[in-house]
């Protein structure tokens, strides 16, 4: 009841603040009245026995701090609040307060700190220089040039850490390797965008992993009634002749699969059939014995002509050379579906790259890889040959060439128009006259060496893409110049970011890309940062499809470990229903689910407790959901809410926190603690033997719970693991690939009950789920913390906690909808202001050389 009252008070107070950048709230002081009565005796009773001046356990002495003024030592007290909120202190075995007391004390401390913060918020100081990461680079190129070009594999990896993001300014560095890659990619991108032919034809191969089952329609971009294959989005840089070559999948003896009968293989461009091949059914002579195990068994191989067909000629000549017009297209390769089901015992895919023997002959043929090569002969497929040997008309050329010179005399002015527009968007501010002059010099150089207007523009665009103004987001202190000349004192006073800086912040936060014209226009007129405009723009940006895409790929994929799915290894002996399609389905499910909550602006609490998910037949079968057929993902209501519903039961989460051959309550518990409860866990202390007790060969195998018992008995393990392990135990109803199970690895019935540190019992996934929802602010707080760090591009510090609490409190009235959290972040002082220059300890910057 008391909790409800607190919440109501907060809502009242903070509701008034919504919609303005005022960070104070009168009602907070009411809460603080209870402070002296609650906090001091609490500390005396539960904390200072260890955390005192004499013992300084964990470096913490609370007896010398003034608990009535926690704002004076906010960093320490925020640590204390964290422990109280998690109820992870006092340690196991010591007397503990009840849940209500925990909350009251934490709230009392928070209230004081928040009040001091509201009077004078510390927005922190994001690093002055913030390099674009690979995703941002790729998206910026897309938005600048209307070009689908994935630069990510061509650029060095971005610094990151577990539970963190790859867009934190402090961590992102610039090395020689980076600049070399930037130069190379700038050339490729600008030539592709302008439709200039590459120096030489190139050949790219797209391989389908061997454990992707190709028995269904594989993609929305392949026709109905198709089976297997792949749809490849591909940007053809210039009009010209291209090669599309298909190779079929081979099994471990290098025999082509499914060659026992004829099947039809289609090659399509943007859905239109280019060529239909018939493969299979032409093996002559005696086949190899079904039990044949390779070269080591003479006499078991087939006749030479059979062998040759099965190994070499069966998929020779599956290639077409076709004229293709420049632009982004989809190359589709698939089989024509036949109503023929392979028979045989269901068997697991074999380990590694092998496929069982009887798949080979009368099974389906599969596509192994598709190669796209070219351009071979440039020039238009129709009409007269092109002036530049380039492209006729592509979305990129239309986006870049906002004017086209009719004569040589018009070229300079036209180039100026084009380049000043591109530079403004690329640099996220108007280009200076010096910058424009530089770009025009490169235009002239390219015009001279390349001989055409287009070649001039291309070189100038290449120059844009290696400019620090494009690659770096820079925050300038207005006073820098003055401070350097000694005219202004160095202070830490926060300053408001300029409208242009805010425009970039918004677009990199919500789109992982550069601002659009509208944002830049608003910023130019300094109209962007009024509260009403900010909120309106955030909602406009969220409604743009780029937002859900970027927030899912950039934010959710890192927060929820989805990028790790590619590294998941599963032991198929133990999990015969596993195949690679399942891992792909896991990723698809979580991405579509989170994107849906974003698009529909649902409560983030729905992430934990939705009654629907997204699934195709493969995933639905895995989850025990009836009535879902076909490979298309669609929204499905969950008939089994006690088994599924919410992220906790997503295969992606469960598989990325398991070992190849068993579940790991520790990894699962750690993930939940860090990413759902928002509490970091330290690694095991150095020198600690992390071996679990050996499995004795003659005794019955112990369950993982029994093996982990030593975490509880060994004090150096217990302080963390008594928090971690119970969370993981509650998910023991799911096996290592996220399937529901009733018996564990040892064959014993699953025991998914767990007792948390504070004595509460959790029973399985549903128990954990309700526990997480019990305190409605808890999960939104974690989401906000993660999203806040991602939005700011810096790690959160103790002085950000008041802002997080404010955002969450404000969002309560809209039931913690995505947009309420996002708007809260955007309106926070940390997003809109930046701490001024601090006095520096040493004059020399940089590293010792």
């Amino acid at each position: 009841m008391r909790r409800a009252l607190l919440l109501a008070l907060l809502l009242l107070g903070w509701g008034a603040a919504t919609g303005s950048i005022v960070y104070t709230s009168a009602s907070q002081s009411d809460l603080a009245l209870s402070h002296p009565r609650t906090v001091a005796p609490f500390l005396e009773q539960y904390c200072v026995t260890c955390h005192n001046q004499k013992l300084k356990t964990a470096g913490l002495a609370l007896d010398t701090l003034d608990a009535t003024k926690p704002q004076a030592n906010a960093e320490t007290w925020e640590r204390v609040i964290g422990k109280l909120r998690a109820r992870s202190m006092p340690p196991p075995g010591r007397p503990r307060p009840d849940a209500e007391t925990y909350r009251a004390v934490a709230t009392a401390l928070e209230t004081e700190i928040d009040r001091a913060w509201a009077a004078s918020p510390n927005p922190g100081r994001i690093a002055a220089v913030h390099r674009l990461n690979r995703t941002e680079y790729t998206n910026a190129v897309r938005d600048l040039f209307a070009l689908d070009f994935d630069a990510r594999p061509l650029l060095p990896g971005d610094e990151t850490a577990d539970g963190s993001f790859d867009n934190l300014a402090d961590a992102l560095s610039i090395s020689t390797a980076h600049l070399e890659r930037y130069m190379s990619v700038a050339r490729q991108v600008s030539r592709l965008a302008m439709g200039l032919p590459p120096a030489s034809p190139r050949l790219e191969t797209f391989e389908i992993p061997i454990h992707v089952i190709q028995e269904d329609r594989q993609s929305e971009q392949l026709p109905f009634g198709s089976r297997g294959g792949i749809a490849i989005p591909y940007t053809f840089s210039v009009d010209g002749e291209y090669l599309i070559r298909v190779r079929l999948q081979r099994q471990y003896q290098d025999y082509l699969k499914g060659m026992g009968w004829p099947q039809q293989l289609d090659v399509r461009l943007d859905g239109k059939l280019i060529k239909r091949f018939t493969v299979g059914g032409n093996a002559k002579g005696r086949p190899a014995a079904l039990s044949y195990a390779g070269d080591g068994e003479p006499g078991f191989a087939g006749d030479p002509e059979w062998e040759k067909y099965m190994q070499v000629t069966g998929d020779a000549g599956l290639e077409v050379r076709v004229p293709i017009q420049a632009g982004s297209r989809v190359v589709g390769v698939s089989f024509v579906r036949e109503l023929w089901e392979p028979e045989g015992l269901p068997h697991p895919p074999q380990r590694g790259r092998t496929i069982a023997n009887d798949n080979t002959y009368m099974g389906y043929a599969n596509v192994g890889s598709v190669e796209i090569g070219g351009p071979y002969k440039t020039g238009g497929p129709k009409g007269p040959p092109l002036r530049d040997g380039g492209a006729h008309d592509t979305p990129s050329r239309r986006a870049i060439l906002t004017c086209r010179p009719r004569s040589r005399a018009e070229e300079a002015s036209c180039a100026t128009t084009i380049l000043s527009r591109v530079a403004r968007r690329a640099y996220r501010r108007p280009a200076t006259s010096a910058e424009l002059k530089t770009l025009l010099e490169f235009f002239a150089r390219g015009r001279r060496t390349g001989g055409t207007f287009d070649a001039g523009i291309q070189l100038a665009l290449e120059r844009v893409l290696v400019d620090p103004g494009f690659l770096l987001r820079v925050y300038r202190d207005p006073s820098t110049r003055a401070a350097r000349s000694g005219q202004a004192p160095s202070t830490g006073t926060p300053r408001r970011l300029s409208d242009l800086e805010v425009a970039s912040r918004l677009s990199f936060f919500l789109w992982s890309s550069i601002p659009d014209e509208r944002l830049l226009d608003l910023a130019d007129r300094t109209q962007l940062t009024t509260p009403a405009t900010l909120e309106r723009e955030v909602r406009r940006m969220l409604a743009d499809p780029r937002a859900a895409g970027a927030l899912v790929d950039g934010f959710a994929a890192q927060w929820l470990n989805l990028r790790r799915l590619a590294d998941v290894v599963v032991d198929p002996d133990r999990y015969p229903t596993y195949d690679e399609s399942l891992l792909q389905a896991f990723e698809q499910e979580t991405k579509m689910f989170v994107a849906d909550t974003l698009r529909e602006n649902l409560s983030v609490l729905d992430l934990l407790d939705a009654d629907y998910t997204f699934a195709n037949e493969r995933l639905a079968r895995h989850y025990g959901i009836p009535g879902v057929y076909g490979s298309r993902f669609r929204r499905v209501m969950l008939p089994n809410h006690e088994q599924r519903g919410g992220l906790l039961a997503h295969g992606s989460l469960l598989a990325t926190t398991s070992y190849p051959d068993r579940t790991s309550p520790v990894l699962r518990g750690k993930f939940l603690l860090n990413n759902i409860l928002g509490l970091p866990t330290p690694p095991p202390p150095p020198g600690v033997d992390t071996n679990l007790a050996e499995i004795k060969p003659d005794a019955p195998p112990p369950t993982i719970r029994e093996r982990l018992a030593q975490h509880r008995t060994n004090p150096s393990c217990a302080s963390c693991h008594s928090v971690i392990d119970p969370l993981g135990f509650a998910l023991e109803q799911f096996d290592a690939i996220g399937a529901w199970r009733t018996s564990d690895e040892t064959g014993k019935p699953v025991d998914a009950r767990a007792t948390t540190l504070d004595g509460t019992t959790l029973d399985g996934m549903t128990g954990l789920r309700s526990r997480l929802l019990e305190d409605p602010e808890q999960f939104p707080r974690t989401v906000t913390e993660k999203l806040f760090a991602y939005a700011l591009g810096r790690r959160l510090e103790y002085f950000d906690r008041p802002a997080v609490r404010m955002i969450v409190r404000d969002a309560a009235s809209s039931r913690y909808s995505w947009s309420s959290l996002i708007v809260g972040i955007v309106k926070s002082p940390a997003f809109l202001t930046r701490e001024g220059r601090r006095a520096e300890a040493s004059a020399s910057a940089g590293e010792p050389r």
Partner: protein
Amino acid sequence: MTFLTGRSLPRRTVLRGLGVTMALPLLEAMTPAGRSARAAARPAHRFLAFYVPNGMAMEYWAPKGEGTSFELSPILEPMAPFKNQMLVLTGINASWNYIHAGASGSFLTGTTRGGRNEVEILADVSMDQLLARHFARDTQVASLELAMDAPANAGACTGILSCAYTHTISWRSPTQPLPMEYNPRAVFERLFGDSGSTGRKAREARLAEQKSLLDSVNDSLARLTRELGGNDRTKVEQYTEAVRDIERRIQKAEEQRDVELPTLDQPQGVPPVFEDHLALMLDLQLLAFQSDLTRVITFMIGKEQSARPYPQIGVAEAHHPLSHHNDVPEIIAHMSKINRYHMELFAKYLAKLRATPDGDGSLLDHMTIMYGSGISNSTRHSGVNLPLMLAGGGAGTLRGGQHVKYSDKPTIANLLVTLMDKLGVPVEKIGGSTGKLPIETVAGV
């Protein structure tokens, strides 16, 4: 010297598209003319670090016997043809033992420290970078940092520390870990430029274009530096340094225009099969050494904490979880297959290095290769008694065919300082080094 225009060599395509690797006989025929002329005068001493992740099955690594009379262990067996050019070093400890981050983080830095959170990235300058600073005067590419894993994705790094610690062994400054390149195409472009050809004309035109781009970027950077204050400039300075590096490389390339580069098609991307990918990465290293484009390479056959399975040798389990074997003998035996497999692949590489003539000997004669892991027993995260081996002739500075045991528990930092001496670039200290290690030198060279 007009005859040294490179016409003496058959120009052949040795690297083709995906996964196709060069054949050894082609390489022998391909000694670049310019290079061999200079090499004959004085063969350069080159350094390679070859990192293997997740520790070692030490029971299958440790050789029996000591000094010159020692028996190769099951893991070391593939090194039999090179026994006279290898030294196994026993008894050296890690300088920073912190789960997996410390293993790779201290391997070449000898550091004793790490960051406290995900954005504090802190170690020490690595040995290869100290060498690179020195050799930068002579070669176009100061150093190459290469790996077999796609760039860092979080999810399998150490604790709350930056993934940098497990994903690279090369540190340019105490706060700047260098990314490792895994894409053969990018490696090709670092070595031979991105003109799409190793032909001289195309290459030179592209170099000129790049020079003008860098000149003008330098102006922009200078403006930016003026606008920023003290500590805010660090990143811009990194950028400026990178520009200088590439400018210097272009200048070198112009000075060394008589060096004939092998004619080859650029690799198109990352081959899907591990061994094809590896072969391509190693062939590119060989070319880089042979053409004297660089003298310093660091290579991780797996990032630390790598979960790569090796089904091709019957190990379908992920490497890192497998290395947490709980000291169960059967699991250790199983994991040792990976360790041995790595050694076999390494020995194949050595065979190519040995078959490549260089001055009066082979490339291998003029190399110091440091092979090993920064952790011994992964399941205990132990940094005691690291699995370490030196290979190559060390340009006369290494007496091979030995198993050296150190009883005074030196850290790897001391080994690094010692190797710097041998490479002719003496330094006072690396990371937490406290002195040098005795390693015999071949007499009279």
